[in-house]
């Protein structure tokens, strides 16, 4: 049975003509899989045969996930996608995220910080990054953003 990643790549290959249109980005929850360390670490993600999948910059997508208020399982899964992005983020991505966060209005900054606190307290969901093992990483980002708030 093909893995999620194999199915994802097959889907992206099928959509290749669309993805080659200038300005089109893959921006959904599959992006962390494309940014997986050792698979393709910088956008646009390049698959084995040179097919480049256009993805947003890590910091922008991470902030977009954190600035969105959602609830329930959908909200939890979105935050776990943010966690996946955070786990593959490089220091430069975190710097970029900090810069983008600093330009947000106060209410959106609060939303970001609130979502990070939720992320530190989530339970593990199947086939998603394990938040219970990444609490310190999320806490570190929270501390950093608070210092710049």
């Amino acid at each position, binding site marked *: 049975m093909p893995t999620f990643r194999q199915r994802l790549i097959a889907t992206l290959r099928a959509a290749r003509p669309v993805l080659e249109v200038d300005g089109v980005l893959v921006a959904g929850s599959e992006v962390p899989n494309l940014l997986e360390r050792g698979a393709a670490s910088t956008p646009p993600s390049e698959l084995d045969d040179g097919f480049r999948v256009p993805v947003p910059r890590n910091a922008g997508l991470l902030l977009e996930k954190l600035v969105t208020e959602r609830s329930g399982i959908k909200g939890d899964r979105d935050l776990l996608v943010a966690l996946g992005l955070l786990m593959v983020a490089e220091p430069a991505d975190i710097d970029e995220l900090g810069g983008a966060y600093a330009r947000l209005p106060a*209410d959106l900054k609060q939303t970001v910080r609130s979502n990070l606190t939720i992320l530190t307290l989530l339970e593990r969901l199947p086939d998603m990054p394990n938040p219970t093992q990444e609490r310190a990483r999320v806490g*570190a980002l929270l501390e950093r953003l608070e210092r710049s708030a």
Partner: protein
Amino acid sequence: MSDHEAAIQALHERARAFRSRIQVRAWEQRQIEGSKGTWYRVRRLLARAERAYAASDEAIEELVAAGARCDPVGEELEPRKRYVLVTAAQASRLVSGPGLVVRLSAELLAAKNLVLVAFEPSALTP
């Protein structure tokens, strides 16, 4: 109504809904220092904790006597709680074992007193 007019009306309706959401969010932001922000402050406190232990009144009082501080957010809850965030060294004499899972569980929220063991500062250095 023509298709064009219907599309314009729909755009106006979306803009109105968007402005409404902005106003609600701004109002919520203004309330964050009050009870509206209580759950955020509880989560923020728990986010600083690597481990959590339900504790006796005596354990909390001993920690407070030694200089620890009950977090004010406990006073915002009814019934009131006493949450003390301490270092692992401070907690070691009073609590042990795996403790409670740090999340918003009924078990954790039902505890009258919580000793929260803070992450080491180095763990929270980005």
